[in-house]
C-alpha cells in the first residue's frame, strides 16, 4: 500500500499524473483578450502617469472605439508606448501613428509589434548618447586622493579573528545577562 502512495506522489511531482491544474479547461484566446481588457483603465492610468498626454489617450481610445477594436487589443498598444517611455523619449505623434495602423486594420499583438518596430526605427526608448551625457557624473579629479589608500589592517577582520557569536540563547542576549522580568 505504502509504495503505491510514494509512486503516486513521485509521479505527481514529475507531472506524470494529471493534477487539478492540468484538468482545468484551457484558456481560449477570447478569455485572454478579456483578461487583458480588464487592465485597460489601469494601463491608461499608467500611461498618464508616465507623461502621455490625456488628449493623446482620449484620441487613441476614440480611434479604437471607432474602429470597433476590443479593449483587449488596446492594451498591448498602450503597453508598447509605456515601455518606450521608460527610455525617456516618446514617439512623436503617437496617436496619429496608432490611428493610421488601426484604420489600416492592424489589431492586437500585431499592432503592438508594429508600434515597437516604429519605436525602434525612430530610436525611441533609447537616449541619443549611450549612458550619461557629456559632463555629467563624477569629475575627473574626484575620488580618493593619490596615496590615500585604505590601510592594510582596516576594514573587515581576517577570518577566524572575530569573537564567536553566542547562538546558544535566543534574542541575541549574551549568556551572562539575566532574563528580563515583567
Amino acid at each position, binding site marked *: 500500500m505504502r509504495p503505491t502512495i510514494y509512486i503516486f506522489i513521485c509521479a505527481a511531482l514529475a507531472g506524470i499524473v494529471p493534477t487539478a491544474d492540468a484538468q482545468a*479547461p484551457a*484558456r481560449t484566446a477570447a*478569455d485572454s483578450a*478579456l*483578461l487583458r*481588457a*480588464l487592465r*485597460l*483603465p*489601469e*494601463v*491608461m*492610468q*499608467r500611461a*498618464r502617469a508616465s507623461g502621455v498626454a*490625456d488628449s493623446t*489617450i*482620449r484620441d487613441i*481610445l*476614440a480611434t*479604437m*472605439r471607432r474602429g470597433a477594436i*476590443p*479593449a483587449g487589443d*488596446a492594451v498591448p498598444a498602450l503597453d508598447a508606448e509605456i515601455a518606450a517611455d521608460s527610455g525617456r523619449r516618446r514617439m512623436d505623434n503617437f496617436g496619429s501613428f496608432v490611428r493610421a495602423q488601426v484604420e489600416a486594420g492592424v489589431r492586437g499583438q500585431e499592432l503592438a509589434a508594429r508600434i515597437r518596430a516604429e519605436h525602434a526605427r525612430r530610436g525611441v526608448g533609447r537616449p541619443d548618447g549611450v549612458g550619461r551625457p557629456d559632463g555629467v557624473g563624477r569629475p575627473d579629479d574626484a575620488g580618493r586622493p593619490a596615496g590615500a589608500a585604505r590601510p592594510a589592517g582596516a576594514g573587515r577582520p581576517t577570518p577566524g579573528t572575530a569573537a564567536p557569536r553566542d547562538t546558544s540563547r535566543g534574542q541575541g542576549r549574551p549568556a551572562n545577562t539575566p532574563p528580563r522580568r515583567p
Partner: protein
Amino acid sequence: MNRPLILLAICLSLAACGKAGQEAASAPPTDVELALIVSRAIEANIAATDSVLTAHGLTRASFDSLLFRIAADPTMSAAYAAGRR
C-alpha cells in the same frame, strides 16, 4: 372633517419617505464599482464570464464600452486602478 385628510397626508408622506429611503439603499453601483465587481468575478472564474455579465445586465460589448469609458476618464481610471490593487 379635516382629520381624515390630515391622516391621509401623513400616510402619503410616510410612504414617500419610505420609498425614497428604499431607493437610496438600492442605488445602482457607479460605473467604476460595477466594473470592479464584474472584473473580480471574471478573474475568479473566467469560465463563468457570460453568466457574470448577464447577472449584472451586461454583454461582452457593453462591458467593453464600460472599460473604454472608464479608461478615457482620468478620475475613473485612477479609482478603478486603486480598486484593483
